[in-house]
């Protein structure tokens, strides 16, 4: 460690330095970075809480409908889904079952949550520019608290849908316990994408527009309004490559069809459209992706204030 001699007070001695060894050049390893991120987040618990509170307050402060907004997006998805499904049902002549509506409702809220998370997390660093350039705190808290605020929103929507499900013919079974597992995976997946995209958006502002385009058309390559089995044997496999798809389909199968997700499921046409390893695939995206994007975020964090 360099020592700079301090001799007397009131003499300017503190600023007359003596030079010794070169400054240390330390590169932290991947694991040290992960540990640092966890420590940072634990240290800023209060900050995360206050920022989440701020985001929620701002959203509802001057809004007429208040928390009813939390339901708007899922309702729009279900409404659009009904229209599409009705057209398909009419064309194929099979009719529209109550369970299909329940399946759409079950998938609409998580999808709205995922879209909402990416929409608020991606610009979270750039829109807090006055904080990022003026005060130091672990920057991870900005996308994280944006996603937490969105989670509170979606939780309300989710509870309302849960209350409606019995009327759509859903009954209790032990398979419902898959739902919390899948929702946790979805939350971590959203955080992984949110961290990466918010950081990318600082470096390249076009990321925000790319995300918007993808989210607008994402509903067509994610089984939200339609079920994955409707895409056929090859189509369903390709569809399931989308890491959100197994979560949404898993939720529908577990809640509406009481399917044990560790058992493959066959479509009425006789091909397998749910394979248990889809779960592992999505978990890898969620947890592996989170660690990787958190480290990328952490390593580029020090340049944020200059680039934003």
């Amino acid at each position, binding site marked *: 460690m360099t020592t700079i001699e301090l001799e007397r007070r009131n003499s300017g001695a*503190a600023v007359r330095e003596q030079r010794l060894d070169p400054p240390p050049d330390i590169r932290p390893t991947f694991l040290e970075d992960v540990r640092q991120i966890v420590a940072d987040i634990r240290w800023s618990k209060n*900050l995360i809480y206050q920022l989440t509170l*701020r985001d929620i307050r*701002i959203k509802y402060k001057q809004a007429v409908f208040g928390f009813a907004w939390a339901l708007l997006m899922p309702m729009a998805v279900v409404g659009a889904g009904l229209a599409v499904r009705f057209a398909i049902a009419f064309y194929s002549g099979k009719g529209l079952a109550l369970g299909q509506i329940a399946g759409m409702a079950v998938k609409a809220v998580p999808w709205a949550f995922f879209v909402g998370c990416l929409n608020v997390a991606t610009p979270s660093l750039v829109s807090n520019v006055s904080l990022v350039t003026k*005060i*130091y705190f672990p920057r991870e808290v900005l996308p994280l608290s944006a996603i937490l605020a969105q989670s509170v929103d979606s939780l309300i929507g989710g509870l309302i849908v849960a209350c409606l499900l019995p009327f759509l013919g859903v009954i209790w079974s032990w398979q419902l316990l898959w739902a919390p597992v899948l929702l946790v995976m979805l939350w971590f997946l959203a955080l992984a994408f949110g961290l990466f995209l918010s950081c990318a958006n600082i470096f390249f502002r076009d990321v925000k527009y790319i995300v918007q385009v993808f989210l607008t058309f994402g509903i067509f390559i994610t089984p939200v309004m339609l079920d994955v089995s409707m895409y056929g044997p090859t189509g369903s496999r390709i569809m399931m490559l989308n890491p959100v798809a197994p979560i949404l389909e898993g939720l529908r199968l577990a809640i509406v069809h009481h399917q044990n997700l560790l058992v493959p499921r066959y479509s009425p046409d006789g091909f397998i459209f749910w394979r248990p390893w889809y779960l592992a695939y999505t978990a890898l995206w969620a947890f592996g992706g989170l660690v990787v994007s958190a480290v990328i975020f952490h390593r580029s964090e*020090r340049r944020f204030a200059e680039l934003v």
Partner: protein
Amino acid sequence: MKDARLLFDRVWKKFHRGQIHDSLRDLIPDLAKRLVGRGPSDKELSEGDFWAVRDLSFEVRAGQTLGIIGPNGSGKSTTLKMLTRIIQPSRGYCEATGRVGTLIEVSAGFHGDLTGRENVYLQGAIMGMPKRDIVRKFDQIVDFSGISDAIDTPVKRYSSGMNARLGFSIAAHLEPDILIIDEVLAVGDMSFQERAFGRIRDLANSGIPVIMVSHQLDRIAEMCTDCILLDQGAVVTRGTAAEAIAAYVQSHDASRMVESTGIVMFDNLCLEGGGTVRSGDHFSVRITGRTSVELGDHIEPILVRVRSLRTGGLIFVSGSQWRGFKLPSPGPFDVCLRLQANLPPGSYMIEVAAEDLNIHEDIASATSVMLRVTDSRTFAGHIQLNAGFSVVES
């Protein structure tokens, strides 16, 4: 807190003039260059870059207050940003050990739609205060800011002064191990400024390391044990506050200075009895130097200028010729200059120079000494008029 300190070790910081690539079109060629290893290095200057801070080192320990002064763009705020970890040095090493309290941009985290109360909790959290501390100190913070009536009003309806006062009050109630201050002394009205400055002085006197940047040189003179003068990122002068301020003030007047002609040379300038006098008291300045030739009437050998560090402006000019004083003959001289400090309390710079009255240019480099005037509690205002009272017998 043991061993709280601020350390800067050979720090360099590079900035880029002009645009940085912001979109993919610019990125791809740049990435390609980086891949083949011909991209710009972080540590060297490439086209359009400049050093905002060059080779700066210092250490501030408990009980010390370091001031950084210099013209705009000299790297003062960049230095503080590196200390607070907002930006990283390009070269070298810097650290702040302990809990850092910053009085910089004190209302940066405010959100206009939230009330003052909500913003106190938010800003406190951003500055790293634990929740229970904010709860405990909430009333103190609001009292100090003096806006308790408006605390439940959204901040967007505040005046800019109220905004700044609330922000300062939050920051001032941190319990830091280290204090970093950037130009926040000009907050609010006069009475609040005094209160704010008193608060900063209390924090600094509690024995923690303090670093401050300010253009109010009298504040620097009053607070700092050490001082660095920066210009274009490099250290010009380092030493006591008086030394650095003298160098700074004189660099302003550099245009007036011509080559020293050697007709008059000053050796030393000192205040007899230390640098502090009570307002209204007499004091002496001892000036020693040499003259090399018989001086004509157009040479003013001892020109005295007094400058207020609050404003940086000259408040008094006089000279030996004006007062009918002649230096005896060529050779060394030792002159005592008597002055009366009819001044309000504050910090002043007494400069002595020789001037050619024909061309109005200094012909000997000015030397200077700093004067502290303390309150005599006999007057208030800009100048002492020696008020005398007597009862008129009729």
